[in-house]
Protein backbone atom coordinates (compact mmCIF):
# COMPACT_ATOMS: atom_id res chain seq x y z
CA UNK A 1 0.00 0.00 0.00
CA UNK A 2 2.81 2.35 0.85
CA UNK A 3 4.60 1.51 -2.43
CA UNK A 4 1.47 2.52 -4.34
CA UNK A 5 1.37 5.78 -2.42
CA UNK A 6 4.89 6.76 -3.45
CA UNK A 7 3.89 8.64 -6.63
CA UNK A 8 1.29 10.52 -4.62
CA UNK A 9 3.85 11.44 -1.98
CA UNK A 10 6.33 12.54 -4.64
CA UNK A 11 3.66 14.67 -6.31
CA UNK A 12 2.68 16.13 -2.96
CA UNK A 13 6.29 17.08 -2.17
CA UNK A 14 6.83 18.47 -5.67
CA UNK A 15 3.69 20.59 -5.33
CA UNK A 16 4.89 21.90 -2.02
CA UNK A 17 8.30 22.71 -3.46
CA UNK A 18 6.77 24.45 -6.47
CA UNK A 19 4.52 26.42 -4.17
CA UNK A 20 7.27 27.42 -1.78
CA UNK A 21 9.98 28.00 -4.32
CA UNK A 22 9.57 31.73 -4.21
CA UNK A 23 10.42 31.58 -0.54
CA UNK A 24 13.39 29.31 -1.07
CA UNK A 25 13.53 27.16 2.01
CA UNK A 26 9.89 27.45 3.03
CA UNK A 27 9.18 23.76 2.69
CA UNK A 28 12.14 22.86 4.90
CA UNK A 29 10.65 25.01 7.65
CA UNK A 30 7.27 23.39 7.02
CA UNK A 31 8.71 19.95 7.69
CA UNK A 32 10.57 20.98 10.83
CA UNK A 33 7.65 22.67 12.56
CA UNK A 34 4.87 21.07 14.52
CA UNK A 35 1.72 20.05 12.69
CA UNK A 36 -1.90 20.02 13.76
CA UNK A 37 -2.45 16.74 11.92
CA UNK A 38 -0.98 13.45 13.11
CA UNK A 39 1.75 12.39 10.66
CA UNK A 40 0.56 15.28 8.54
CA UNK A 41 -2.57 13.41 7.52
CA UNK A 42 -5.01 12.56 10.31
CA UNK A 43 -6.56 15.58 12.04
CA UNK A 44 -6.19 15.83 15.78
CA UNK A 45 -8.41 17.62 18.32
CA UNK A 46 -7.70 21.28 18.93
CA UNK A 47 -8.17 22.48 22.45
CA UNK A 48 -8.04 26.15 23.39
CA UNK A 49 -8.16 26.70 27.13
CA UNK A 50 -7.71 29.93 29.10
CA UNK A 51 -6.47 31.68 25.99
CA UNK A 52 -3.65 29.16 25.51
CA UNK A 53 -3.36 26.78 22.62
CA UNK A 54 -3.33 23.35 24.23
CA UNK A 55 -4.20 21.33 21.13
CA UNK A 56 -3.02 17.78 20.73
CA UNK A 57 -0.49 18.16 17.93
CA UNK A 58 1.85 15.81 16.09
CA UNK A 59 4.64 16.24 18.64
CA UNK A 60 2.27 15.65 21.56
CA UNK A 61 1.14 12.37 19.98
CA UNK A 62 4.76 11.32 19.62
CA UNK A 63 5.41 12.19 23.24
CA UNK A 64 2.45 10.03 24.29
CA UNK A 65 3.75 7.18 22.15
CA UNK A 66 7.26 7.49 23.58
CA UNK A 67 5.90 7.58 27.14
CA UNK A 68 3.81 4.45 26.55
CA UNK A 69 6.70 2.61 24.88
CA UNK A 70 9.19 3.47 27.63
CA UNK A 71 6.67 2.53 30.31
CA UNK A 72 5.87 -0.88 28.86
CA UNK A 73 9.50 -1.70 28.08
CA UNK A 74 10.60 -0.86 31.60
CA UNK A 75 7.64 -2.73 33.08
CA UNK A 76 8.62 -5.81 31.10
CA UNK A 77 12.25 -5.46 32.19
CA UNK A 78 11.28 -5.04 35.84
CA UNK A 79 8.97 -8.04 35.76
CA UNK A 80 11.60 -10.25 34.16
CA UNK A 81 13.69 -9.93 37.33
CA UNK A 82 11.05 -11.89 39.24
CA UNK A 83 12.62 -15.33 38.92
CA UNK A 84 16.34 -14.65 39.09
CA UNK A 85 18.72 -11.75 39.62
CA UNK A 86 20.37 -12.49 36.28
CA UNK A 87 18.46 -11.09 33.32
CA UNK A 88 18.17 -12.80 29.97
CA UNK A 89 17.47 -11.54 26.49
CA UNK A 90 16.01 -8.10 26.09
CA UNK A 91 16.19 -7.33 29.82
CA UNK A 92 19.92 -7.96 29.58
CA UNK A 93 20.24 -5.27 26.93
CA UNK A 94 18.28 -2.79 29.02
CA UNK A 95 20.38 -3.69 32.04
CA UNK A 96 23.53 -2.68 30.16
CA UNK A 97 22.11 0.79 29.55
CA UNK A 98 20.64 1.18 33.03
CA UNK A 99 23.81 0.07 34.80
CA UNK A 100 25.84 2.34 32.53
CA UNK A 101 23.70 5.33 33.52
CA UNK A 102 23.86 4.39 37.18
CA UNK A 103 27.59 3.71 37.41
CA UNK A 104 29.15 6.07 34.89
CA UNK A 105 26.72 8.98 34.92
CA UNK A 106 24.81 9.32 38.17
CA UNK A 107 27.16 7.92 40.81
CA UNK A 108 30.28 9.95 39.90
CA UNK A 109 28.46 13.23 39.35
CA UNK A 110 25.84 13.11 42.09
CA UNK A 111 27.90 11.56 44.85
CA UNK A 112 26.10 10.37 47.94
CA UNK A 113 22.33 10.01 48.06
CA UNK A 114 22.06 9.33 44.35
CA UNK A 115 19.38 6.68 44.75
CA UNK A 116 16.64 9.26 45.26
CA UNK A 117 17.30 10.88 41.89
CA UNK A 118 18.03 7.74 39.93
CA UNK A 119 14.41 7.15 38.75
CA UNK A 120 14.10 10.71 37.49
CA UNK A 121 17.41 10.64 35.63
CA UNK A 122 16.82 7.20 34.12
CA UNK A 123 13.37 8.26 32.91
CA UNK A 124 14.85 11.45 31.48
CA UNK A 125 17.48 9.49 29.56
CA UNK A 126 15.17 6.88 28.06
CA UNK A 127 12.40 9.37 27.27
CA UNK A 128 14.74 11.76 25.46
CA UNK A 129 16.44 8.88 23.68
CA UNK A 130 13.10 7.50 22.43
CA UNK A 131 11.92 10.93 21.31
CA UNK A 132 15.17 11.55 19.43
CA UNK A 133 15.05 8.17 17.72
CA UNK A 134 11.45 8.75 16.64
CA UNK A 135 12.72 11.57 14.48
CA UNK A 136 14.71 9.13 12.40
CA UNK A 137 11.97 6.71 11.33
CA UNK A 138 9.86 7.39 8.24
CA UNK A 139 6.83 9.61 8.88
CA UNK A 140 8.22 10.35 12.32
CA UNK A 141 9.16 13.73 13.66
CA UNK A 142 11.45 14.42 16.57
CA UNK A 143 9.43 16.01 19.34
CA UNK A 144 12.69 17.19 20.89
CA UNK A 145 13.13 19.32 17.78
CA UNK A 146 10.57 21.65 19.29
CA UNK A 147 11.76 24.31 21.71
CA UNK A 148 8.57 23.90 23.73
CA UNK A 149 9.27 20.24 24.49
CA UNK A 150 12.90 20.80 25.44
CA UNK A 151 11.94 23.81 27.55
CA UNK A 152 9.48 21.60 29.39
CA UNK A 153 12.16 19.00 30.09
CA UNK A 154 14.62 21.68 31.17
CA UNK A 155 11.98 23.22 33.46
CA UNK A 156 11.52 19.80 35.08
CA UNK A 157 15.26 19.58 35.63
CA UNK A 158 15.29 23.12 37.02
CA UNK A 159 12.53 22.26 39.51
CA UNK A 160 14.29 19.08 40.61
CA UNK A 161 17.62 20.91 41.03
CA UNK A 162 16.19 23.75 43.09
CA UNK A 163 13.91 21.44 45.03
CA UNK A 164 16.77 19.10 45.91
CA UNK A 165 19.00 21.97 46.97
CA UNK A 166 16.32 23.66 49.04
CA UNK A 167 15.27 20.42 50.67
CA UNK A 168 18.83 19.68 51.69
CA UNK A 169 19.72 23.07 53.15
CA UNK A 170 16.45 24.97 53.55
CA UNK A 171 15.47 27.86 51.31
CA UNK A 172 17.68 30.46 53.02
CA UNK A 173 20.52 28.03 53.54
CA UNK A 174 20.54 27.13 49.86
CA UNK A 175 21.10 30.72 48.84
CA UNK A 176 23.67 31.20 51.57
CA UNK A 177 25.49 28.13 50.36
CA UNK A 178 25.84 29.62 46.91
CA UNK A 179 28.32 32.16 48.19
CA UNK A 180 31.74 30.62 47.77
CA UNK A 181 34.31 30.76 50.55
CA UNK A 182 37.92 31.75 50.38
CA UNK A 183 37.63 34.70 48.02
CA UNK A 184 38.27 38.41 48.69
CA UNK A 185 35.17 40.18 49.95
CA UNK A 186 35.02 42.84 47.25
CA UNK A 187 34.31 40.15 44.70
CA UNK A 188 31.39 38.69 46.66
CA UNK A 189 28.51 40.73 45.13
CA UNK A 190 29.63 39.90 41.61
CA UNK A 191 30.02 36.20 42.43
CA UNK A 192 26.57 36.14 44.00
CA UNK A 193 24.98 37.73 40.92
CA UNK A 194 26.84 35.30 38.69
CA UNK A 195 25.60 32.36 40.73
CA UNK A 196 22.00 33.60 40.62
CA UNK A 197 22.23 34.06 36.85
CA UNK A 198 23.78 30.63 36.59
CA UNK A 199 20.68 29.08 38.16
CA UNK A 200 18.68 30.22 35.15
CA UNK A 201 21.19 29.97 32.33
CA UNK A 202 22.14 26.36 32.99
CA UNK A 203 18.69 24.82 32.33
CA UNK A 204 18.21 27.28 29.45
CA UNK A 205 21.41 25.97 27.89
CA UNK A 206 20.16 22.40 28.37
CA UNK A 207 16.96 23.20 26.47
CA UNK A 208 18.62 25.08 23.62
CA UNK A 209 21.41 22.53 23.21
CA UNK A 210 18.99 19.62 22.76
CA UNK A 211 16.65 21.59 20.51
CA UNK A 212 19.40 22.99 18.28
CA UNK A 213 21.18 19.65 17.88
CA UNK A 214 18.03 17.84 16.82
CA UNK A 215 16.79 20.61 14.51
CA UNK A 216 20.15 21.25 12.89
CA UNK A 217 20.55 17.61 11.90
CA UNK A 218 17.12 17.46 10.32
CA UNK A 219 17.62 20.77 8.49
CA UNK A 220 20.88 19.48 6.99
CA UNK A 221 19.23 16.27 5.79
CA UNK A 222 16.28 18.17 4.29
CA UNK A 223 18.58 20.65 2.58
CA UNK A 224 20.71 17.92 1.02
CA UNK A 225 17.71 15.97 -0.29
CA UNK A 226 16.07 19.23 -1.31
CA UNK A 227 19.01 20.03 -3.56
CA UNK A 228 17.58 17.46 -5.96
CA UNK A 229 14.33 19.41 -6.16
CA UNK A 230 15.83 22.87 -6.14
CA UNK A 231 18.33 22.13 -8.89
CA UNK A 232 15.63 20.13 -10.73
CA UNK A 233 18.13 17.56 -11.95
CA UNK A 234 18.49 13.85 -11.33
CA UNK A 235 22.27 13.72 -11.56
CA UNK A 236 22.88 15.37 -8.22
CA UNK A 237 21.05 12.57 -6.44
CA UNK A 238 23.96 10.12 -5.89
CA UNK A 239 25.99 12.83 -4.15
CA UNK A 240 22.94 14.17 -2.37
CA UNK A 241 21.68 10.84 -1.10
CA UNK A 242 25.19 9.76 -0.15
CA UNK A 243 25.82 12.83 1.99
CA UNK A 244 22.33 12.62 3.46
CA UNK A 245 22.95 8.99 4.42
CA UNK A 246 26.18 9.94 6.16
CA UNK A 247 24.47 12.74 8.06
CA UNK A 248 21.69 10.29 8.91
CA UNK A 249 24.16 7.93 10.57
CA UNK A 250 25.64 10.89 12.40
CA UNK A 251 22.12 11.77 13.55
CA UNK A 252 21.75 8.36 15.20
CA UNK A 253 24.98 9.01 17.12
CA UNK A 254 23.82 12.53 18.01
CA UNK A 255 20.48 11.16 19.29
CA UNK A 256 22.29 8.95 21.83
CA UNK A 257 24.89 11.56 22.72
CA UNK A 258 22.36 14.34 23.32
CA UNK A 259 20.25 12.16 25.60
CA UNK A 260 23.41 11.23 27.49
CA UNK A 261 24.57 14.86 27.74
CA UNK A 262 21.19 16.05 29.01
CA UNK A 263 21.19 13.35 31.68
CA UNK A 264 24.78 13.85 32.79
CA UNK A 265 24.43 17.63 33.00
CA UNK A 266 21.18 17.36 34.96
CA UNK A 267 22.86 14.93 37.34
CA UNK A 268 25.87 17.24 37.65
CA UNK A 269 23.68 20.24 38.49
CA UNK A 270 21.70 18.23 41.05
CA UNK A 271 24.96 17.10 42.60
CA UNK A 272 26.23 20.67 42.74
CA UNK A 273 23.01 21.83 44.39
CA UNK A 274 22.87 19.04 46.93
CA UNK A 275 26.56 18.98 47.88
CA UNK A 276 27.14 22.69 48.01
CA UNK A 277 30.32 22.49 50.00
CA UNK A 278 32.10 21.33 46.80
Amino acid at each position, binding site marked *: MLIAELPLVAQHVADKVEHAEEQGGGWI*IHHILDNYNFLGIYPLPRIHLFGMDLSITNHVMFMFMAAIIVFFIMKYVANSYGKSRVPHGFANLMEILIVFIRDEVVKPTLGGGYEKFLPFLLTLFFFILTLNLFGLVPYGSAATGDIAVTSGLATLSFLVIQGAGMKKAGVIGYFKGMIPHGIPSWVLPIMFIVEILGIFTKPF*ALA*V*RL*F*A*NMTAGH*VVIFSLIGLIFILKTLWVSPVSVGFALFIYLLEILVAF*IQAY*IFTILSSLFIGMAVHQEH
Partner: protein
Amino acid sequence: MEWASALAYLGAGIGAGLVVIGGGLGIGKLAGQAMDASGRQPEASGDIRTSMIIAAALIEGISLFGLVIAILLALK
Protein backbone atom coordinates in the same frame (compact mmCIF):
# COMPACT_ATOMS: atom_id res chain seq x y z
CA MET B 1 13.92 49.14 -0.32
CA GLU B 2 14.31 45.72 1.27
CA TRP B 3 17.39 46.64 3.25
CA ALA B 4 16.18 44.97 6.45
CA SER B 5 15.57 41.65 4.76
CA ALA B 6 18.79 41.75 2.77
CA LEU B 7 20.91 42.69 5.76
CA ALA B 8 19.22 40.00 7.85
CA TYR B 9 20.16 37.34 5.30
CA LEU B 10 23.70 38.70 5.08
CA GLY B 11 24.03 38.70 8.86
CA ALA B 12 22.70 35.16 9.08
CA GLY B 13 25.16 33.90 6.50
CA ILE B 14 28.22 35.60 7.98
CA GLY B 15 27.14 34.64 11.48
CA ALA B 16 26.71 30.98 10.61
CA GLY B 17 30.14 30.93 8.98
CA LEU B 18 31.82 32.46 12.01
CA VAL B 19 30.04 30.04 14.33
CA VAL B 20 31.29 27.10 12.30
CA ILE B 21 34.86 28.48 12.43
CA GLY B 22 34.69 28.81 16.21
CA GLY B 23 33.20 25.38 16.76
CA GLY B 24 35.58 23.71 14.34
CA LEU B 25 38.65 25.28 15.93
CA GLY B 26 37.55 24.39 19.45
CA ILE B 27 36.67 20.79 18.74
CA GLY B 28 39.74 20.32 16.52
CA LYS B 29 42.06 21.47 19.29
CA LEU B 30 40.21 19.23 21.75
CA ALA B 31 40.51 16.19 19.51
CA GLY B 32 44.21 16.86 18.89
CA GLN B 33 45.03 16.98 22.57
CA ALA B 34 42.92 13.87 23.17
CA MET B 35 45.01 12.05 20.56
CA ASP B 36 48.21 13.24 22.27
CA ALA B 37 46.99 12.05 25.65
CA SER B 38 45.90 8.69 24.24
CA GLY B 39 49.33 8.27 22.70
CA ARG B 40 51.08 9.01 25.95
CA GLN B 41 48.96 6.64 28.01
CA PRO B 42 47.10 4.07 25.91
CA GLU B 43 45.43 2.39 28.89
CA ALA B 44 43.54 5.61 29.72
CA SER B 45 42.19 5.94 26.19
CA GLY B 46 38.69 4.77 27.22
CA ASP B 47 38.31 7.55 29.78
CA ILE B 48 39.84 10.06 27.41
CA ARG B 49 37.43 9.07 24.66
CA THR B 50 34.40 9.49 26.94
CA SER B 51 35.55 12.89 28.19
CA MET B 52 36.33 13.96 24.65
CA ILE B 53 32.81 13.13 23.47
CA ILE B 54 31.25 14.99 26.39
CA ALA B 55 33.38 18.07 25.82
CA ALA B 56 32.72 17.98 22.07
CA ALA B 57 28.98 17.86 22.67
CA LEU B 58 29.17 20.84 25.02
CA ILE B 59 31.24 22.90 22.58
CA GLU B 60 28.83 21.98 19.82
CA GLY B 61 25.98 23.14 22.05
CA ILE B 62 27.57 26.57 22.28
CA SER B 63 28.08 26.78 18.54
CA LEU B 64 24.46 25.78 17.99
CA PHE B 65 23.33 28.75 20.13
CA GLY B 66 24.84 30.96 17.44
CA LEU B 67 23.21 28.85 14.76
CA VAL B 68 19.79 29.32 16.33
CA ILE B 69 20.27 33.10 16.22
CA ALA B 70 21.32 32.85 12.56
CA ILE B 71 18.20 30.82 11.77
CA LEU B 72 16.04 33.40 13.58
CA LEU B 73 17.60 36.13 11.45
CA ALA B 74 17.21 34.21 8.20
CA LEU B 75 13.53 33.66 8.88
CA LYS B 76 12.71 37.36 9.19
